[in-house]
């Protein structure tokens, strides 16, 4: 039987991540892929889709509800179990680390599911790397803005050149073992409290 015959349901409140997983499944030849962002009324959807594999993100607060639904399996015509192969602890760990879990219908061979889980794990990891990098870029930009404002305050209140203002900020940060952006933020706050320097 070809991999394409499996019906896969992706439950993820994060739309971007869900579409990344969906694209990955399509690339792997899966054509019966459905994505759900909101779990309201999910029982009916599961009854209709009859998924063989369900991929779910671990941030979802409704995981307990979903697991219970899978176990009771009234809405679900075939019992669904968590993807657990105890011998494969590496897979389990990798999934939990990545923040994803998978459930499969009873009797489905693990070789058919493993590639799906592996793909989900690698896409989840790629997504968090991306998010992390974006976050870093944003915070770096924020930091640079703060440093610019702090430099302005020092230049105005102490008559320093821009280079000297920056050197003072950097020296203070090194002495206090803090980030230069944190020192800049403290200075801006203090200046605001003292009513000196720039306007907020």
């Amino acid at each position, binding site marked *: 039987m070809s991999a394409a015959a499996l019906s896969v349901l992706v439950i993820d409140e994060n739309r971007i991540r869900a579409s990344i997983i969906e694209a990955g499944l399509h690339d792997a030849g899966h054509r019966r892929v459905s994505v759900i962002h909101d779990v*309201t009324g999910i029982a009916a959807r599961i009854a209709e889709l009859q998924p063989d594999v369900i991929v779910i993100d*671990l*941030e*979802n*607060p*409704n*995981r*307990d*509800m979903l*697991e*219970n*639904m899978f*176990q009771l399996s009234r809405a679900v015509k075939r019992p669904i*179990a*968590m993807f*657990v192969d105890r011998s494969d*602890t590496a897979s*389990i*760990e990798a999934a*939990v*680390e990545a923040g994803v*879990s998978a459930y499969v219908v009873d009797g489905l061979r693990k070789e058919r599911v493993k590639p799906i889980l592996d793909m989900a794990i690698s896409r989840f990891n790629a997504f968090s790397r991306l998010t992390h990098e974006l976050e870093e870029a944003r915070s770096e930009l924020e930091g640079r803005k703060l440093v610019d404002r702090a430099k302005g305050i020092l230049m105005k209140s102490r008559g320093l050149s821009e280079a000297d203002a920056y050197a003072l900020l950097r020296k203070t940060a090194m002495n206090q073992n803090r980030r230069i952006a944190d020192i800049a933020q403290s200075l801006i706050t203090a200046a605001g409290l003292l009513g000196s320097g720039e306007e907020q």
Partner: protein
Amino acid sequence: MTAQLQVTAGFMPLLDSALLVVAKEMGFAAEQGLDLRLVRESSWANIRDRMAVGHFDVAHMLAPMPIACNLGLTPLATPTIAPMALGLGGNAVTVSTVLWEAMAGAGARPDLDPLATGRALKAVIAERAEATPLRFGVVHPHSGHNYELRYWLAACGVDPERDVEIVILPPPLMADALGAGHIDGYCAGEPWNTAAVSKQVGHIATVKAAIWKSSPEKVLGVAEAWATANPAALDALLRAIYRASEWCADTGNHGALAELLGRAEFVDCPANWIMPALSGTIDMAGGAIAQVADFFVPQAKGATFPWKSHALWFYTQMVRWNQVEPSADRAATARDSYRPDLYRAALKPLGVALPGANAKVEGALRVPTPVGSAGASLVLGPDGFFDGEVFDPADLDAYIAGQKKAAIEN
């Protein structure tokens, strides 16, 4: 200086995460030489999974969870023990404003009395006849909430399997689900009942502390392998949590505790949502106040002691609601999941009250009663069930058979 002992604990944003949060934030863990790291989680399934893969050494757990893990009722479970409880009580049953009005019409009074409100609910259900069954939310199938809601309903003549529908929802979403009409009522821990009252979508009908006085709710779940490999860290943790429980019990600290738990990294709610559970002054709806004795007990009455009779009662309810087939081996697994021996060993050096027994007859104490203890004197109870039934852990089969018989007669 010796290396610090490290422990990572998972917790859910609930009132009774208080003991772990206070152990860390008020310095009791550090005092025991312990570097306690707290990680907030969004589902009990995540707590279980992250414990199984070793991310968490210990966790804030629903009291029946370690038993369910050891009985193999959940996927990906790791052998888990409960060497300490994290308080007694703390839950309530909230119904929608519409359902409360119907119940009031059928004789329910705003006094939290389980029998009167339960009978009123039965009358409302009888009138509905063929309409869609009322839907109640609980937080997990293996939870004190599920079992006490079912116990209350069954004892009032409502069949939890046939007369109502019980669904699973995460506690922070309960109040909104009630307001949106997705559910008609729920049993959850605080502050998630007060949340519905505050949002004016629900009425607190009864409380855990009235259904079963001094009843178990959460435990410290510990990965058995970690406990075996790290006895010193476990002892230090139990001592730190015990000290935290004393701090939580001091009424002088309640304001600070409410502020602390309300913070974004813990329960993340207004501090005034935490106060009712701490003071026992419960706003049932629209300012109708009831004073509840022992609503949440963090320390007194052996509130942190892992009674084997509590473990066994949960086991009888798992059998009652067809979650597990009864057997002597399974009963033993349930009983052995709770570890009062580890509790005593860790706390003995503190000279605090240690119960002499491992189990007690639940429901036997009608009034506060001094009991045999070591270290300091100990008063337990009252611990009665609202229907007057008594659970003798020495006679499991009779209790299970009695509940089956009552169900048939109803």
